[in-house]
């Protein structure tokens, strides 16, 4: 193995992966390029936009600012892990039902931030929803629909629509 390549073990969405990564490779790039998990997006590459948001050991982080080697031994949750087969998660369903998805580029990060928010605060106020998503930028400007989608999940409305 070359000196600038290291072996890492990651558990991604419950599945264990052994990878050889370059020491300078970000977690985002390793997931996209080595594992083909292209749901997490790269946009600003400096921790401003949140398009690369995923969870490491349950904590929402910008994966563009994490080296793959730092994630060795960690549990990673990405957007690909939310749906159960063809059945979308309630958050994903609510985003569709509320028309929150326009160009879609920011949506995986938005959904992961919403997932993180609801895992800590199942009944967020409108202000808490805005705060919870404030690390994610949407250039289409669909913030109202995105916030409505999160509110719908919290109130249980989204689950009802799913049942129908």
């Amino acid at each position, binding site marked *: 193995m070359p000196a600038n390549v290291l072996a890492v073990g990651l558990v991604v969405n419950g599945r264990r992966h052994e990878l050889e990564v370059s*020491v*300078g490779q*970000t977690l985002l790039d390793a997931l996209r390029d080595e594992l083909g998990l292209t749901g997490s997006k790269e946009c600003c*590459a*400096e*921790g*401003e936009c*949140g398009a690369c*948001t995923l969870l490491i050991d349950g*904590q*929402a*982080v*910008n994966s*563009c*600012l*994490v*080296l793959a*080697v*730092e994630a060795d031994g960690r549990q990673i949750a990405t957007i690909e892990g939310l749906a159960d087969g063809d059945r979308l998660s309630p958050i994903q369903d609510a985003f569709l039902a509320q028309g929150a998805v326009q160009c879609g580029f920011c949506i995986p990060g938005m959904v992961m*931030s919403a997932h*993180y928010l609801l895992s800590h605060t199942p009944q967020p106020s409108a202000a808490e929803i805005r*705060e*919870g998503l*404030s*690390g*994610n930028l949407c250039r289409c400007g669909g913030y109202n629909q995105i916030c409505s989608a999160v509110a719908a999940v919290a109130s249980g409305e989204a689950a009802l629509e799913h049942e129908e």
Partner: protein
Amino acid sequence: MLQAEPAARPLCGGTDLLVGLRKGTLRPPLVVDLKRVAELAPAIEQRDRVLRVSATIVLTQLIADERARAHFPALVEAALVVGSIQIRNRATLAGNMCNASPAADTAPPLLVYGAVLELAGLAGRRRVPLAEFFTGPGRTVLAPAELVTAVELPLPSEPLGAVFGRMTRRRGVDLATVNLCCSVSRSGVTRFAYGAVGPRSFLVSDETGTLADETAEPAKQEEVLRRLTAEASPISNVRASAEYRQQMLLVLSRRALDTARRRLAEVADAG
């Protein structure tokens, strides 16, 4: 490892370091991940009358700590506005100091609360008051291969009203145009620490009791505030002009002083 490669860069949260690495503005020969160093495991411990925050504690952990919330509320207020949730889940308090941005939001409250940094290097260990740590934008007294291992916060020795404040161009995730922390103690000492209005965050104080005394003549208070804020040497940049920063510093100082005095009164009432 650091002895062999003194130009190595320590990595904790990486929220500043990774940006530099990716842009190519930082090209260290080696990066050492401190999260893998057993001695630096994340811990907030109270020993005697000092709250010790280890170098790997991230801002989210600090914000959630009951002791930090009880004794250092202005620090928690500042930590809550650093970056975004994703950044706060990763960025460390110690790293925020090492990065030495003049606009670092946690620096003013740490200065006001008299924080001391615990350093470890090839020459051994030493402790440096934060007020003597910054030497300029992005520059500190850290020697090559020297690390900050913890931030020590002495518990206030008397009732204190303190507040953090800042001005940004927009709500939400943004760097401070001006930031500050103000504390008023029961014995009448008023301290201000100012950020983003000079090459480094810095501390000034009024020990005459003029500012702490709500009944003091307004003109006298204004004179003291003008003298303290005149210590600033702001620059003009993308976020604001030097003149605007200087004016806003005075406005924010007045407001922070009001809040700090009110909080001191509340602490006194509760006590």
